[in-house]
């Protein structure tokens, strides 16, 4: 080919390319493009190692028996209402002391058109308590432990018998785990080795939720279509949802600012703060319930075995600096409370403030006035938040003679490291699905050595209070017990709370109906583009 010919053809090609442009404007209004850092690794929440994006896929494609109502939070945004249970697949239910009976919607169907029956519910619940791992464990948190508890009364009536009276039983049936699976479809793909069709449901969805999976390309994209026959709630406004995995936070931000994407979660605090200030997109930050970013001090290791040393450190944390310089204000402060505790809703702010003179005095009282050396460990997987926080603490503690070395632990390693419980000083975050305080304390301050009690804190008094509160029938006594263990935690301070993290969601201004859910992922059912 001659050069001139080549140029001619190339020019024609460019012209042709410019001529053909996809025009798809009207479908854009019914289509939502959402971005996140990671996509699901499994469509089945009962699966082995299903990640948090996997919860989002499951949450939107499967129904549960019951769900929560909605309320406005303090900033006027929609927030699920933990106090108001409402039916999803169940129309209503009767709660007695020994059991709860659900009446299923008679017109509910799965995505393949088969009607939803109580047998499907039983099969799904049996599966959740049998397959092990997260689902079984989560069911246990609501005293749902044995298949015998789940009884099919007739096609549309399903009963759960209690093995003990537990105030978490009903709330636990509205978390993402107890989904209702199309058991007929799933059983077709079950084998002798795999009676619960774990393999098949990993890549295929057999639900009856408001959205069905159109296509899943692992690591890249999930596309959903609305299930038009959905009966468990008002029909969603969106007809199609496209969920792209964009690993680079900078690009997610650019896509949002350019208006090419509709909604994004998982943005770093700095980007969120700047997006919120920029005014081009809407940013909603909801405090994540029952979650705290904190420092743990290992009470079995000197010098943290002394209460005064722990209190000294709590007075030497540069709280406000952390909020301003590391978090850009994207967090709810959990320090500097002046009066006594009056509310029990966890988390509550600690009474500590930055007071280096007091810290120094406490260290002297404890006999380590000359200071000491320690190692502060944190998870590199969340380095965007952890690294600046830990550096600020390093700098501040140096002023009271405490020399801190930072130990950065890679994400894959972090859990294994902190569960050994040999870290003297560490930064971490914890959040629970269920919001009652005793649930948080059971995991984090309980003496039965849960893996989240990284401080190795053990107190007979604390254990007694948590245990009594969990099964306390009298509300007034319950409140007092909660106040007592919360105060004890601040007094003994094995853990220094810093702030309650926010779930930050950036969205275009024409996106309406965003609702915060404890799953910390998006619920497409309420979203709409106007």
């Amino acid at each position, binding site marked *: 080919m001659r050069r001139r010919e080549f140029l001619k053809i190339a020019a024609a090609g460019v012209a042709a390319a410019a001529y053909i442009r996809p025009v798809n404007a009207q479908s854009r209004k019914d289509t939502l493009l959402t971005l996140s850092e990671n996509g699901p690794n499994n469509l089945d929440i009962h699966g082995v190692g299903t990640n948090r994006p996997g919860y989002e896929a499951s949450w939107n494609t499967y129904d549960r028996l019951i769900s929560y109502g909605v309320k406005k939070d303090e900033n006027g945004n929609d927030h699920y209402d933990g106090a108001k249970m409402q039916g999803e697949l169940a129309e209503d239910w009767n709660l007695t002391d020994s059991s709860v009976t659900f009446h299923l919607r008679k017109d509910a169907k799965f995505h393949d058109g088969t009607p939803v029956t109580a047998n499907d519910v039983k099969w799904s619940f049996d599966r959740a308590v049998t397959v092990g791992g997260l689902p*079984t464990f989560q069911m246990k948190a609501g005293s749902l432990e044995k298949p015998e508890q789940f009884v099919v009364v007739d096609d549309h009536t399903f009963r759960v018998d209690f093995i003990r009276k537990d105030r978490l039983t009903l709330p636990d049936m509205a978390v993402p785990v107890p989904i209702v699976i199309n058991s007929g479809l799933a059983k077709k793909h079950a084998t002798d080795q795999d009676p619960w069709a774990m393999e098949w449901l990993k890549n295929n969805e057999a639900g009856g939720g408001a959205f069905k999976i159109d296509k899943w390309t692992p690591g890249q994209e999930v596309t959903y279509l609305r299930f038009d026959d959905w009966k468990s709630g008002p029909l969603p406004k969106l007809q199609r949802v496209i969920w792209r995995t964009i690993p680079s936070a900078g690009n997610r931000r650019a896509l949002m600012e350019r208006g090419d994407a509709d909604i994004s979660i998982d943005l770093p605090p700095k980007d969120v703060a700047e997006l919120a200030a920029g005014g081009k997109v809407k940013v909603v930050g909801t405090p994540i319930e029952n979650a705290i970013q904190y420092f743990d001090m290992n009470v079995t290791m000197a010098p943290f075995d002394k209460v005064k040393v722990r209190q000294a450190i709590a007075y030497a944390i540069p709280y406000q600096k952390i909020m301003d310089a590391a978090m850009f204000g994207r967090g709810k402060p959990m320090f500097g409370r002046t009066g006594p505790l009056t509310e029990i809703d966890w988390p509550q702010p600690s009474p500590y403030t930055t007071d280096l003179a007091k810290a120094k005095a406490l260290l002297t009282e404890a006999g380590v006035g000359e200071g000491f050396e320690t190692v502060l460990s944190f998870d590199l997987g969340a380095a965007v938040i952890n690294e600046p926080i830990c550096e600020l603490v390093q700098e501040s503690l140096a002023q009271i003679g405490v020399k801190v070395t930072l130990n950065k632990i890679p994400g894959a*390693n972090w*859990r294994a490291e902190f569960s050994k419980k040999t870290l003297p000083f560490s930064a971490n975050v914890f959040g629970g699905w269920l919001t009652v305080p005793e649930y948080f304390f059971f995991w984090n301050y309980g003496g039965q050595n849960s893996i989240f009690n990284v401080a190795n804190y053990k107190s007979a008094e604390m254990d007694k209070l948590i245990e009594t509160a969990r099964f306390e029938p009298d509300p007034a006594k319950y409140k007092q017990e909660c106040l007592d263990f919360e105060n004890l935690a601040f007094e003994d301070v094995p853990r220094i709370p810093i702030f309650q993290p926010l779930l930050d969601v950036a969205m275009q201004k024409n996106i309406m109906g965003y609702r915060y859910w404890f799953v910390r992922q998006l619920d497409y059912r309420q979203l709409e583009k106007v």
Partner: protein
Amino acid sequence: MVVLRRLASALPSIAGVIVVTFLLTRALPGDPAVYFAGPAASEQAVEEIRHKLGFDRSLPVQFIGYLKDLAHGNLGNSLSTGQPVSQELLTRLPASAELTFLALFLSVSIAVPLGIAAATRPGSWIDHTCRIFTTAGVSLPVFFTGLLLIYVFYYRMGWAPAPLGRLDIYSSAPPFYTGFYLIDSLIAGDFETFRAALSQLVLPAFSMAIFSLAPLARVTRASMLAALGSDFVRTAKAGGLSRARIVYVYAFRNAVLPVITTLGMVFSFLLGANVLVEKVFAWPGIGSYAIEALIASDYAPVQGFVLTMAMLYVLLNLGIDLIYSLVDPRVRITA
């Protein structure tokens, strides 16, 4: 025959790669069972998962199991995406390869003429341009060039499409023939998809090309300088051959061998090391796949990735050797 013998000589290295990757992935810090048990799992839940994944068995038993699977062409399952590794590699390798080929094509078509021009006019402005390009190319990290290009051409100017991977969200992938979207869309006669795929490719391909043209331009320039200063070129000049004939036929053909060697190196390097570009452009390639697997201590994809790369290197070296013997009859392949 020669080719077969040459291939056979690669077998020991592949066997070595299999053993080493198996042991190395096991030596990685981190515990996949703990990682995949999720944040709220109990000790017992972790043990259950460990058993399910087979990591509670001894290393030799695990290794034999691995070899058996390998013999059946089964590379295992990735835990983080939940898919068979062989299938993932098969869909992701073309994505990386398409990007790499295009980058390499761009970089050769810029670097070689630039190198030749610089060598024929040493000390001129074009030589200095070449020097600036090569220095800038090696000193700018790929992800930085990528981010810069996105910032300028997408965020500021709005010329380039959103960095959303291989296709924008309103196009769908062409039917599978080769896995290369450009080729597949042409086979299907779907010019709209071709245009969409090409426009997504431009920025990542350029950021990789800018990085890889540096070694190519330098080697071209150096070996051209050597060839132009050699006796046969002086003879050709004395014989009164035209300048174009001297430069392109005699000098370049002799100077091209080191360029091809470098090309092979650059290619294999780009294929494996374009992780950062893939991350920046949300490109679903094998580099980003391997990195994600490493972070999650996900053994099977890491093993599969290293094995695939080892195979590719073997094939690539073979290809380069074959090209050598075509370009220069003095080079003969011996095992």
